[in-house]
Structure formats: structure tokens, C-alpha cells
């Protein structure tokens, strides 16, 4: 077993309020739901961490308040927080978030992903790579990398419903 980058991460318990309460309008099929930050957070909260059997939400890597959605202007901005400032998995985590949103959000959305300011020693380099569509396209043609991403995304559909990953 290779040495873990962060062997003992802090585990957070999601607060109950992070679970969505359906409103009348949302249940009403005649009203078009706009996509909001809760919806986008639900898409990414249960992505698995590349090295722990825990979700990004449990590791506090993704947080609802760091998801910004401008539905009218088709824009999503995600900031995530690596567990440690020298986390070498940061680019991979960002790539997983990007792929999840590529696959789930309507095509009209442009997505920007950044490491939360001051939480990673190479934040500029990581951010630049994550937002370069050519680098992302090339990365996703790498079969090994795609397999790792798919593995992390295998739990994403839980949308925070269950906090335990087997």
C-alpha cells in the first residue's frame, strides 16, 4: 500500500440542513426549476476522495457556501479546499468535480473550478490546469486517469443521501 498523502484527515459530519427540503414549486411540474447552488452541491458532495473511503463533503473539501451558481448567465463557480496545503491530489479532485459537472449539468453552463484562496501552495498552477479545456480533454483520453476519475465518481449519485461508502 503506497503511503497516503494525508494519513489522518479530519472527518466532518454534514449538518442536517444540508439536505434538501422540497418546496411546493419544485414538486410542481409546471414550474421550471432553476439550477441553484444546492442542486450543484448535491451533484458533487458525494464524490469519493481519491485516497480515502470518504466523500468530498465528509472531508470538508466541498462546501455548499463555496458553490456559486448564476443560472441566468449559465455560470457555475466551484471552490474546493484541499485537506492539506501540499495535497498532490488537488488536481485530480478538481478534475473529478469538473467531469461530474460535464456529465450532469446542462450544456449551457460554463464551469470554473478553483482551489479556495490560500488553501494550497500551488493554487495558481492547479487552477490554471483545471480550467484549461485542452488539458482537461487530453487528461480524459488517458485511460488510466479516466478509470481513477470514474472510481471517484462511482459514489457521486448518492447526492449526500448516505454518508457511508462501502
Amino acid at each position, binding site marked *: 500500500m503506497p503511503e497516503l498523502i494525508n494519513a489522518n484527515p479530519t472527518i466532518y459530519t454534514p449538518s442536517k440542513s444540508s439536505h434538501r427540503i422540497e418546496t411546493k414549486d419544485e414538486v410542481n411540474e409546471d414550474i421550471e426549476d432553476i439550477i441553484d447552488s444546492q442542486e450543484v452541491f448535491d451533484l458533487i458532495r458525494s464524490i469519493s476522495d481519491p485516497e480515502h473511503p470518504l466523500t468530498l463533503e465528509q472531508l470538508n473539501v466541498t462546501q455548499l457556501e463555496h458553490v456559486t451558481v448564476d443560472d441566468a448567465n*449559465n455560470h457555475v463557480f466551484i471552490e474546493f479546499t484541499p485537506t492539506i496545503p501540499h495535497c498532490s491530489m488537488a488536481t485530480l479532485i478538481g478534475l473529478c468535480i469538473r467531469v461530474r459537472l460535464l456529465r450532469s449539468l446542462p*450544456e*449551457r453552463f*460554463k464551469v470554473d473550478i478553483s482551489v479556495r484562496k490560500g488553501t494550497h501552495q500551488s493554487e495558481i498552477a492547479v487552477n*490554471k490546469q483545471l*480550467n*484549461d*479545456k*485542452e*488539458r482537461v*480533454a*487530453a487528461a480524459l*483520453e488517458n485511460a488510466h486517469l479516466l478509470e481513477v476519475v470514474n472510481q471517484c465518481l462511482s459514489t457521486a449519485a448518492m447526492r449526500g443521501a448516505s454518508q457511508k461508502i462501502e
Partner: protein
Amino acid sequence: MPRLELLAELKGHTDRVWSVAWSPTSNILASCGGDRTVRLWVPTTSELSQWNCTNVLEGAHTRTIRSAAWSPNGRYLATASFDATTGIWERDANGATLEGHENETKSVAWSASGALVATCGRDKSVWIWEVEADNDFECISVQQEHTQDVKMVIWHPSEELLASASYDDTIKIWKEDEDDWYCSDTLEGHESTVWAIDFNKSGDYLVSASDDKTLKFWKKCSPDHVDGNVGKHRVDPKWKCIYTLSGHHQRCIYSVSNGNNDHTFNYTMVASIPSAHGVADINCVQWHTSETHSNLLASAGDDGIILNEYVS
């Protein structure tokens, strides 16, 4: 009032189209992209509203074909692929494969005379190849002065002068000095990746497009240190940024094309099509290379290819 009018949609690619290139000698458009094919398109009507895909070049590249470039005589098409190779295609012939880059090759360009080919890629290098007889290509120089991914290479319209644009936010100009190539200038000013560059027709100006949402215009000026330093240093022209155009694009600018008919740049917006490709990104724009069709603009996007006509 000047405007751009939609002429045709070219449908066939099954994935994102990364690049389009007009043949310099005939009315053919080449396109390439994520489906690992190159398609050749020719018009079937004189109004240019109908185009047929006459050839699908496939099987040579195992990954995305990022860009394509015609040789000046229109006989060869070169393709740069994420599979680390550059393909050379010739009608009814076997073609060639240029190998050497460590990973994704991103751009390929022919010099004005057709005697040299340049390639660049994610391995931060720029390669210069000499075209020999019988589809043989010899690498004559490998330049590694960019500190990051090199996105695009383009040759000067008449001289053997090469420009490269990079993820390191700079543009570099490469020259030959007694069989040795060197970086004669580094153009700094963009605040993020430089995705594309183009010379004007006379080659006195260069335009660059960047992730920083600006276009910059660079002018070939006199060397900085003519006095006193002659003989000590090579005296090369200095490219100076004379204008930065901002405020027109809200996101990354992936492509810029100067066209065939301008001698100096115009910094005023004369026409635009909002959402020309709907919600899809536009990856490449190219004005037609011929005088007759110089008002024809092809654009490649994540959704496909469209042709527009500029009406003045």
C-alpha cells in the same frame, strides 16, 4: 452596416471540432477534432450554401487531432495529435508520420516556402523539421525555452521566422543563425495562456489571443540596444505591444485569424455574432485564404462547424 451572415453548417464530426484550415490553392476546408478524423469539405453550389464532406481521413491518429495545416502548395495536409505524432497526408499517397514529441502535439505549421515544418506540444518544446524528398522529414532543431505547454506555432508570411504561443503566458520568436535556431525575442504582457497568434499579411504585426480575455497587437520595432552593443549581442527586432483590446469577450479567447486582405490591424469592432455556436465554445476561426473568398469565415466549435460571410 457590416455584418456576418450564416452561410452553411457543416455536419459530420461526432465530437468537438478543434480546428479548421482553408486550402491555400483550392476551395477546400479541412477540419479535425475529438473524433480522431480529418474531414475535407467542398462547396456543391456557387452560393457556397451547401458543402459536402468528400473525404474522411482516419486511422492514422489514435487520439484527438488538435490542429491541421496545409502546405503552401496545397498538396500536403499536416495534422497534430494528442497521440504525440504529427501526420502528413497527401492525396493518393502514403504520407508520413513525424515522431519525437513526448506527449500531446498541439500545433503544426508550414513555412512560407514549404521547406520547413514546425510542431509544438505539451512537452514545452518547439520542433523544426526540414522537408526532404520522398516525404522525408528531418528534425533540424528542438527548442525548449518555453517553461510550459506550447499551444500554437505559426510562421511569418514570407521570412523563415517562427512564432510560438504558450501556457507560460508568453510568445517567442525563433530565428535561424548559421544552422542554429534561437529565441530572438520573448513577448511578455498577457496575464494568462496565449492560445493563438497570427501575423498580418506583410508580417510587420502580430496579433495574439489569450485566456486573459484580451487580444494584443505587437509591432516589429527596431532593436532595443543598437548603440554600443552591436557585435556583442545579436541585433534582432523587438516586438512591442502597441495595443490591447479588451472588454469584448467575457471568457477565454481561443483563436484569432487575420485574414488575407489587411495590411494593418483595425481595432474597432465592425461586426459580431453573439452565440454564433449557441452555448458551445468556439475553438477556432479562420478567414478564407483566397482573394475571391476573403469574406468567408469558418468557425469550429464544440458543436460543429459553421461558415459565415462578412457583408460590408
